């Protein structure tokens, strides 16, 4: 091993795999720092903050938590703007839902490489495992990530390195290939065994992927948004709102976002000034945002749907306050929509 302590930057998602990868490399005397990318679609953070019922549960940011357990620094990078191009024009296409995993990984490793070069780091590590994920972590796609990100043989995957050609850190003897792993496939058992060996517990186990784009319902709402607007684009507010509330589209030109509980209603409050919004006043009930253009007839239907989700859903009449974009409010007295009038296909 060379005199100067070698440095690696690790892609830290907050999940177990990257946590293990870091510890494996730390054990070889390498200085490791973490990098975490915020695309706007990350599962971390806000949904917990938004939904009241989740608030006590898991408010920690897992990437920060992992870094603290490992005793490494963590740099969180906002890639919201740059990520749009990755999501809208993925060269390698999408996975099962709107997740452009392969392009996403290439992009993140590329950004990590830029960071490494700027900060004097020697190589990059990830928690990837051959065969773990159907798109980005296949034997044939892992070299694609190394190549197209520009990282080439400076990209080391400690958990499955033995299944892949030796990388620069291995060839140079900065790390001992023999002490790396040969995990492959979808089984999580080897990771769990290694976690136990390192004494890790209480780690996060996100189902599916690290972001909302792997979620079918979320992807459907995103595609619906593009269809309704007639163009594929999004702003931060759009992607945040897709995470919140019930989304109901009674007609192509508008949809309703109905808060499901107090936390969501409070969150939606923040958008009152930019959306027409409705709320029952004769009964307790949700705050509802109207996204799109609505005729008077549409507003009445929206009010009836709002009433349907209020405590007055069985009442004959519910008074709903409607506020337009100028902040002017009026009251409508409506009959709540009956369950069979609310068409299942309106639910996004």
């Amino acid at each position, binding site marked *: 091993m060379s005199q100067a302590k070698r440095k690696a930057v690790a892609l830290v998602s907050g999940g177990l795999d990257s946590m293990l990868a870091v510890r494996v490399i730390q054990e070889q005397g390498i200085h490791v720092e973490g990098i975490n990318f915020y695309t706007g679609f990350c599962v*971390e*953070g*806000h949904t917990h903050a938004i939904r009241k019922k989740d608030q006590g549960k898991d408010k920690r*940011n897992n990437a*920060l938590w992992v870094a603290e357990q490992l005793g490494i*620094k*963590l740099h*969180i*990078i906002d890639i919201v703007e740059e990520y749009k191009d990755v999501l809208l024009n993925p060269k390698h296409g999408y996975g099962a839902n709107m997740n452009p995993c392969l392009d996403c990984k290439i992009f993140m490793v590329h950004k990590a490489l830029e960071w490494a070069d700027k900060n004097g780091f020697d190589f990059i590590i990830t928690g990837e495992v051959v065969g773990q994920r159907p798109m980005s972590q296949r034997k044939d796609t892992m070299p694609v990530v190394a190549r197209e990100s520009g990282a080439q043989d400076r990209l080391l995957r400690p958990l499955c390195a033995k299944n892949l050609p030796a990388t620069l850190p291995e060839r140079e003897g900065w790390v001992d290939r023999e002490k790396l792993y040969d995990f492959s496939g979808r089984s999580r058992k080897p990771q769990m065994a290694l976690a136990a060996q390192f004494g890790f517990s209480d780690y996060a186990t996100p189902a599916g992927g690290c972001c909302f784009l792997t979620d079918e319902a979320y992807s459907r709402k995103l595609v619906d948004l593009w269809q309704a607007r007639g163009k594929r684009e999004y702003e931060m507010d759009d992607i945040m709102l897709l995470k919140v509330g019930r989304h109901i589209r009674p007609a192509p030109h508008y949809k309703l976002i109905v808060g499901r509980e107090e936390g969501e209603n409070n969150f939606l409050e923040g958008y009152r000034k930019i959306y027409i919004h409705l709320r029952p006043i004769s009964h307790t009930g949700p705050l509802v945002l109207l996204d799109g253009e609505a005729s008077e007839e549409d507003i009445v239907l929206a009010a009836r749907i709002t009433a349907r989700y209020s405590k007055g859903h069985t009442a004959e009449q519910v008074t709903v306050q409607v506020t337009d974009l100028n902040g002017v409010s009026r009251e409508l007295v409506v009959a709540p929509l009956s369950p069979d009038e609310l068409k299942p296909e309106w639910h996004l």
Partner: protein
Amino acid sequence: MARYQLDARRLLCPMPVIRAQNRVAELQPGDVLEVTCTDPGALNDIPAWCRINGHRVLATRRDGNEVIIDIEVGDGT
């Protein structure tokens, strides 16, 4: 040793942490950055970020819906 302010209101985690991180990078050790947030999650995330990156939280307080966190910039170790 100067005192600075950062408005991270209406941002949801992890954005307040990212903003604080980027501002701290421009400051000198010993400087104090006062971050004002509305996402209470920042009360967990910003101190965690400080602990792992060698900065110190001097005080946290709540003012209505706002959370205010004073960070003393460390020397990066």
